[in-house]
């Protein structure tokens, strides 16, 4: 584990990625506690303010403190994205492993069906699901999870199939190890690693998908401090103060880049040959 952490921190991607993700997680946990202002308090006299000592990142079209809104909105944005990715990955991993395990006709049928589902763009799929369930944050979570499942199923299946054929699995079979031992000690550790890498990168896509849903009016609803919604609301007032638009964008970018870098760093650290 220590060895692994060292390898992760040695790559520039891993080091920066860890730094950004830890920073984001700290904001998620402690953000609401340290927020200097009430994120929903309207101050008609302090609208469109630039950064100052009272309002670190300025104020928005209603005079709300942008910095506080970002700190509070981190939960709505990041936690939801992580949860949706985990749920989607679990569903996908289950389908993928089952498909690889069943093999033959069933595998063929499952994979063809997955291909078909993937021919609907994931944003469109999420839009349809949210419209079906009604727009709310929880429904957006379900929508993103369902939209991610087919892709994860495909990846899990291909990894599981290739691991099954590896020499070390054959060696374990030849040694006369039990099926349970082979799956637990030989296959799982090698299947999980690529899935975790993929999952980490997907979190950044989930953040974007959530933000996009909110932007289209189908995710979080005003006056929530969700970052995508903040960008969406800022569009009408952006020529009055660019800050309303820029800061939530920067926040989204930090999360997306952080998880992307971490995913790449993990891939390198888990795969020392490359």
């Amino acid at each position: 584990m220590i060895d692994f952490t060292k390898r992760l921190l040695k790559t520039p991607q891993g080091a920066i990625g860890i730094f950004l993700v830890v920073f984001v997680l700290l904001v998620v946990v402690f953000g609401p506690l340290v927020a200097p202002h009430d994120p929903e308090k309207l101050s008609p006299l302090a609208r469109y303010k630039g950064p100052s000592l009272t309002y670190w990142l300025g104020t928005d079209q209603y005079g709300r403190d942008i910095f506080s809104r970002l700190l509070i909105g981190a939960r709505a944005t990041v936690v939801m994205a992580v949860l949706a990715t985990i749920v989607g990955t679990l569903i996908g991993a289950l389908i993928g492993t089952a498909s690889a395990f069943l093999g033959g006709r069933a595998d063929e049928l499952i994979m063809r069906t997955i291909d078909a589902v993937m021919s609907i763009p994931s944003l469109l799929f999420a839009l349809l699901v949210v419209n079906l369930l009604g727009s709310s944050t929880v429904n957006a979570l379900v929508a993103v999870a369902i939209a991610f499942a087919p892709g994860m199923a495909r990846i899990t299946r291909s990894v599981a199939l290739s691991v099954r054929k590896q020499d070390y699995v054959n060696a374990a079979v030849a040694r006369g190890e039990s099926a349970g031992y082979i799956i637990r000690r030989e296959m799982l550790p090698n299947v999980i690693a690529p899935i975790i890498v993929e999952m980490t990168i997907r979190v950044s896509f989930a953040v974007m998908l959530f933000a996009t849903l909110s932007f289209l009016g189908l995710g979080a609803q005003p006056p929530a401090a969700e970052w995508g919604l903040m960008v969406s609301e800022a569009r009408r007032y952006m020529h009055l103060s660019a800050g309303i638009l820029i800061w939530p964008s920067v926040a989204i970018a930090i999360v997306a880049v952080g998880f992307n870098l971490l995913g790449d760093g993990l891939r390198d650290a888990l795969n020392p040959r490359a």
Partner: protein
Amino acid sequence: MIVYTLFVVSLIVFAITQVLPADAAVMMLGENATQEALDALRATMGLNAPIWQQYLTWLWHVVQGDLGTSLRTGQPVGPVMFEALGRSLLLAFLSIGLMLVLAIPLGIIAAIRRGKVADMVVSLISYAGVALPEFVTATIAVLFFADWLKWLPPTGYVPLTEDFSRGIAHLVLPVCVISIILIAHVSRMVRSELVDVLHTDYIRAARLKGISRGQVLRRHALRNALLPTITIVALDVGYLLGGVIVVEEIFAIPGIGRQLIVAIQARDLPAIQAGVLIMAATYSIVNFIADILYAWLDKRIQYD
């Protein structure tokens, strides 16, 4: 294969539109319609038949090219959707073109200068590219290039046949916004494929034979490294179509994405069904062509 895909998509689409809390008869006659009028309309629209029968009827019409009538406008859905698809495809083709022109050279430079400054710059570009969703880059682009610099029009669509130069001016920002994420993704893929190929034995053998680096790159490495790009680009079309939805909404381009959003917001079931089917079909056809192209270019692969 495509037939099976479209069959599954039609099932999904029909299932979703069936569960959607919208009653087609109420939608057409309004909330205040009498019970008799609703019943009569339901009977003529076949809404009282069992679901599977409704599905088969719908499917039969779709196969014959009749995508249904919009609940919102009362016009046939098919012609409207295909006209909108044309505008979206123009946007998509221009974006893919711009992406290929930029992403492939970037990927090649990064691979041959691996670990050097050029490589770092390219990977920095690609991380920046995947950092922001389209609606954010689009909004920022409008703020910069339309509001502040006033170089380009902020939104709107002018057909190229009507006024070519104004039409292009309206397309510049949308095309750039859509291609950013694609450029980031594809340039990284080209880089990693080329890095892998450059480490193979046949490349080393070619170098040892005394062939110059440029020759090896052109005649051996690139041919093998660029092949998988076809598949990646084809798979990215799904992402592209999603991006098109957002970008069309922001730039007010009357393409299929915008039609779909309007249809979804109005719960216009036939329009939703038609739009999703057309998008899925586009994706499947592109991937089918990519598979054939791949097999044609790579003689090692044989499809039955």
